[in-house]
C-alpha cells in the first residue's frame, strides 16, 4: 500500500550518517508517507485557489508554513526537478540532481530577460448566444481534436499551432510533435518509406501490403501523410514514385485499423494533383501517365463514397475542381484527360450532370488535334493526347448510354434504339458521335 520504500528512508538516513534497522525504517516509512500525503493534500488547496491544475513547489512551501513546519529554503528555478535513477546492487534509488553553483557564476551571468507585461485582449465569445467564427475562438477542428484526444499532445496540423500563437503574439513557437514514437515505429517508418521509394517492385508491394494490414501504425499516420505530400510535390515527373505514393494512399485508406478522417484534407490535394497535373512524367510522348491518372481517379471516387456522407462538402469540392479542369480550354489535354476519368469515376450522376452536356464542345476542341497529320514532334504528342481524351470520353459516354438503356429496359420504359438512338447521339455529341456509335455497336459499319 505504501508508495515509499523503506530503502528510500534508509538511503536518506545514510546521508545524515545514521544507519537504520529494518523495523525502524518500516515504522518511519509509514509515518513519513502519512506526513507527505497530508502536506500534498494541503498543498493541493493552494493549487486550487491559484486556479491551477499543476502543483508548484511554492504550493508545498505554503502548505508547510500552514502546518507550522519550516519551509524549504532555497533557490527556485521554476523548472520541474528530474529524478535520476541509480542502481546500487539490487536497490534502485531515485534522486534529484542537486548541482553546486558557484555564486560568482550567478553574479556574472547576464540578467535574464525582463518578463513580458501582462496584457489583455477582448473578443466576443458569443453574440446573442452564438459563437462567432473568429480567430480568437477555437475552430471546429480544434474542438473535435479536444474531444477525441483529451490531454494527449497530438501531432497537430500546422494551422492549429499557428492560430494560438497569432493571438498571443509572443508565445514561443512550440515544437510540432510532443508524442514520442517508439523506436520500433521509427524503424518501421524508415523501412517502409525506403521500400516504397526503392526501385524494386517486390519491395514496394511488400511495403504497401504491410501498410494496408498493420494494426499498430496509427501514430505514424501524420508522418506518412507528410511523407506522401513531400514525395508527390518533389517527384512530379517521376512516374514510378507518384504511382507508388498513390498505392500507399490506397493502402492507408484500406487499412481498417487506421483513423484517416482528420487527415483527409491533407490527402486529397495529393490525389487531385495526380489526376489533373499538367505533366506527370519525364517524357509525355512515351511514358504512360494515363494509368496513374485513372488509378488516382479511382481513389478519389473511393474517398467520396466512403466519407461523402460525413463530410457534406467533400464531393462538391472535388467535382468543382475536376469540372474546372475539364472545361478550361487553356488547360493542356493531359489535365482534361484526368478530369474526364475523375468525373467518370465519381459515378453515373456526375457523368450525366457534368460531363454529358459538355461532350460536344470538347469534341469540337480536340477535332483539329485529332485530324493533325504529322507523326513527329510536339504536334504528334498532342494528337496522341487528344486520342486518349477521346477514348476516355467515348468510353464513358458509351457506358452511360448502355447503362441508361439497361435501366429503362428494367423499369419497363420505352427504349430508344436503332435509328432514333443514332439521331440522338448525333445531335448531342456532334463530332464524337461517330466514335461513340462505334463503341456502342462495334459491328456496325460506322454511321450510315
Amino acid at each position: 500500500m505504501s508508495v515509499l520504500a523503506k530503502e528510500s528512508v534508509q538511503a536518506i538516513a545514510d546521508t545524515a550518517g545514521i544507519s537504520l534497522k529494518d523495523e525502524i525504517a518500516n515504522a518511519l516509512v509509514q509515518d513519513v508517507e502519512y506526513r507527505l500525503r497530508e502536506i500534498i493534500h494541503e498543498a493541493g488547496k493552494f493549487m486550487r485557489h491559484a486556479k491551477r491544475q499543476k502543483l508548484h513547489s511554492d504550493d508545498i512551501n505554503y502548505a508547510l508554513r500552514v502546518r507550522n513546519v519550516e519551509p524549504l529554503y532555497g533557490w527556485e528555478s521554476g523548472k520541474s526537478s528530474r529524478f535520476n535513477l541509480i542502481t546500487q546492487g539490487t536497490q534502485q534509488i531515485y534522486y534529484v540532481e542537486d548541482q553546486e553553483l558557484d555564486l560568482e557564476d550567478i553574479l556574472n551571468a547576464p540578467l535574464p530577460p525582463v518578463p513580458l507585461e501582462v496584457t489583455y485582449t477582448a473578443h466576443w465569445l458569443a453574440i446573442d448566444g452564438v459563437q462567432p467564427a473568429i480567430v480568437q475562438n477555437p475552430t471546429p477542428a480544434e474542438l473535435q481534436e479536444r474531444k477525441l484526444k483529451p490531454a494527449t499532445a497530438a501531432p497537430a496540423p500546422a494551422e492549429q499551432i499557428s492560430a494560438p500563437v497569432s493571438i498571443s503574439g509572443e508565445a514561443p513557437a512550440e515544437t510540432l510533435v510532443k508524442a514520442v514514437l517508439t523506436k520500433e515505429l521509427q524503424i518501421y517508418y524508415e523501412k517502409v518509406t525506403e521500400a516504397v521509394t526503392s526501385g524494386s517492385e517486390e519491395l514496394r508491394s511488400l511495403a504497401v501490403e504491410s501498410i494496408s494490414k498493420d494494426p499498430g501504425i496509427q501514430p505514424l499516420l501524420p508522418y506518412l501523410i507528410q511523407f506522401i505530400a513531400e514525395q508527390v510535390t518533389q517527384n512530379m515527373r517521376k512516374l514510378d514514385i507518384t504511382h507508388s505514393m498513390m498505392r500507399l494512399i490506397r493502402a492507408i485508406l484500406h487499412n481498417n485499423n487506421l483513423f484517416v478522417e482528420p487527415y483527409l484534407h491533407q490527402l486529397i490535394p495529393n490525389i487531385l494533383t495526380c489526376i489533373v497535373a499538367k505533366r506527370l512524367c519525364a517524357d509525355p510522348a512515351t511514358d504512360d501517365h494515363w494509368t496513374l491518372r485513372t488509378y488516382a481517379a479511382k481513389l478519389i471516387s473511393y474517398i467520396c463514397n466512403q466519407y461523402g456522407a460525413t463530410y457534406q462538402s467533400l464531393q462538391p469540392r472535388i467535382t468543382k475542381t475536376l469540372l474546372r479542369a475539364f472545361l478550361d480550354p487553356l488547360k493542356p489535354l493531359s489535365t482534361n484527360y484526368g478530369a474526364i476519368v475523375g468525373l467518370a469515376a465519381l459515378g453515373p450522376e456526375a457523368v450525366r450532370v457534368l460531363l454529358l452536356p459538355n461532350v460536344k464542345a470538347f469534341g469540337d476542341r480536340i477535332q483539329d488535334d485529332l485530324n493533325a497529320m504529322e507523326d513527329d514532334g510536339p504536334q504528334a504528342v498532342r494528337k496522341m493526347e487528344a486520342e486518349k481524351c477521346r477514348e476516355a470520353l467515348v468510353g464513358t459516354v458509351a457506358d452511360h448510354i448502355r447503362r441508361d438503356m439497361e435501366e429503362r429496359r428494367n423499369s419497363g420504359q420505352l427504349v430508344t434504339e436503332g435509328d432514333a438512338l443514332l439521331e440522338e447521339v448525333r445531335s448531342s455529341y456532334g463530332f464524337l458521335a461517330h466514335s461513340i456509335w462505334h463503341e456502342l455497336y462495334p459491328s456496325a459499319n460506322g454511321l450510315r
Partner: protein
Amino acid sequence: MAAEGRHSQEHSDRLVAAYLKTRGYRHTEAFFRKEANLPLSEGSLDSGLHQRHEASVPDYILFYNEAEASNPNAYERGYSRLRKWVDDSIDKYKVELRGILFPIFVHAYLDLIVRELRDQAKHFMELFRVDHSELHGQDIARLSAILEPQHVSENDLAQNFRSNRYGLRMSRYSFELLLSFLQDNNFMLLLRIVNEHISILVVSTEPENGEDGLEKDQTIGLVGQSVHQLEDFNRQQLALGTLPPDMPFLTEIERKIKEEAPPDAGELLEELEKVKLEATADSPAITLPAKKLIDVPAAIKSLRETRNRVQLSSTALPSICCYTFHNSSSSLQSLTLSPDASMVSGGFADSFIRLWDITGADTKTSKSGFKGEQGAQSSRRLVGHGGPVYGTSFSSDRRYLVSCSEDRTARLWSLDTFSNVACYKGHNYPVWDVDFSSQGWYFATASHDRTARLWSCDHIYPLRVFVGHLSDVDIVRFHPNCSYLLTGSNDRTARLWDVQKGTCVRIFKGHQGAVQTLAFSPDGRTVASSGEDHNIILWDISSGKRIKTMAGHTGVVHSLCFSKDGSVLASGGGDNTVRIWDAKRAEVRELGVKRDVTHSIAQDSMSHLGTYPTKRTPIYNVQFTGTNIMMALGAFQSEG
C-alpha cells in the same frame, strides 16, 4: 412497555456482570450481582439519545461481545457480510442501504488502526476501497494514508468522522431490515459503529423510488449537526426580501434628474418609480451608512443601465465578451470585474494586485487616474501584501478595493489614490476569499482556519466570526440584502449565516467535492453552488432544499453568476468553457414526474443552454454587467 423495559434492563445487567467477570473484578461483580436484584434507576443508560425521530439501537450493544472484539478479523468478516447482504437485498431497499456502507467502512478502518491492527487494516482497505472510490475517492485516498493511532488523532478528516455523526436518510422498513440483520448475525462491532457514529433519520415508511442510485439524496454525510436538528435548522425564519428603498436618497436622485434633464429623463424617472415600489414584506433590518450625494451620478447611471437591459431567457441567450490575459505564466490567481464593468483587478502569486482600466478610454482624459505605462493599456500595481493574493472585491461605488492573501491579512485599497488604506489582521491562516457587500461598508472574508469573518471598513478587528465549517472555507458571498452571508467549504457544504446574530441558519449539503463558487440570484431567493465535483446545484434558500443539479462541466467550476433578471445562470471553469444554464426551468424529477432511464442525460441537456469554449483560457470569473452583457475573464495558459 413496562415488561419490555424490564427485559432490556435484565439483559444489560447480565452484560455488565459478564464484563466485570472477564475483566476479573470479582468483588465488584459479586456486589453487582447482589445489587442487580434491586431496581436500578430507570434511564441511566438512556442519556437522551432517543429523540423525536431517532430510531436508536438499544444501548446495551455498547457493551459488545468481547469475544468478537478480540477477533481482529471481525470487522472484515462483518463488513463483507453486510456488503453482500446489501447487494443481495431487493432493489427497492438497496439504494438506501448502500448509503450505510461508507461510514461503516471508514469507522471500521479507523477502529482497526486505533487498535494497532495494522496488517488487518491494510488488508481491509485494499479489499474494500474499490466500493467507495467512485463517490468518495478523495476521502479514501486520505484515509488510506493513516496508518498509526497517532495519525487518527491528528488527521482532521478522521477527527471529523470521529467527532461528528454521519447523517443518513432511510425509510423505516429499510432501517428495521438493517437492524434485524445486524442483530440476528451478532455483528456487535458494526452495530456499535452504527450507534456511535451514524445518525439515521427515518423519513417515511416507503423507500423513495430511485432506480438510478442517487445515493447523494440519501446521504446527508458529515455536517456537524445532528440530522434531526438539520431539518429544524433549515426551517428557521429568514428575511430574504430586498432592502427597503432609501427614500431620501431616491428623492435626491429624482431632483438631480429633473435638474439636469438628460434626454432620457422620462424613462429614468419611470424606472425610479419601480425602484421605489420594490419594498417587500420580508425586508431585513440592517444598519447601513447613509448614502451620500457623491453616489447620485452612479445611481443614475445604473438606472439607465437597467432601462437598457437586454431581456434574457432560455431562447434569448446573452452575448459574452471574453477578456483574455496573456503572459501571466500561471501567476495570475484571481480576476474580478468592478460592478460598473470599467475595471478589472487581478491578484498575483507575486503578492501584488494589478488594476486594468478596460473602458479603453484615452489615458490622458481618463478620470480614473490611470497612468499608461506603455500608452496602450493602462494599468496600476498595488503593492502591499506579503503572499499570493487569492481574491479581490470592489466596493459598489468603485472607490475601494478589498483583497485577501496568503499572508493572513485582508487589505483595503483606495482607488482614488491607489494606496493601501487599512490592513485587517484576524485570521490565523491564509485567507481564501473576500467579498464586499452590495452596499459597501461591510466585507467578509473566508479562511483556511475554517471560519468566515465579517468586517466593517472602519474597524481593524472582525465584527463577527462565523464558526461551524469542518474544513477550509473556500468562498464567501453576501446576500443581496446584506443581512446574510453564504460560505462554501472544503467540507462539501455551503452554509448561510445571519449577519446580525452571527449564527448559521441554513446548511446546504449535496456536493461531492469542495464548494468553490457560489452565486445568489438577484432576488435573493435562490442560490447556485458548484466546485470540485463539476456539478452545479441550485438551492431554494427559504426551504433549504435542492431545486436541481446541472451537470456538464468537465473541469472545476471557478465562477458562477446569475443574469440581472435571474433567468439565466452562467458558469465558467477550468475546462476552458463558459456555459449557460436555464435557471428557471424545473427538472423533471422535481416536478414529481416519474424518473425514466434517460434521466441523467435529460438532466444534462434540459437546463443546459449553451457551451462556449475558449482556445486555452480557463475562465476565472464570469459576471453580468448592468445591461446583461456577460463578461468572462481568464488567463491564457501557454502550452507546457
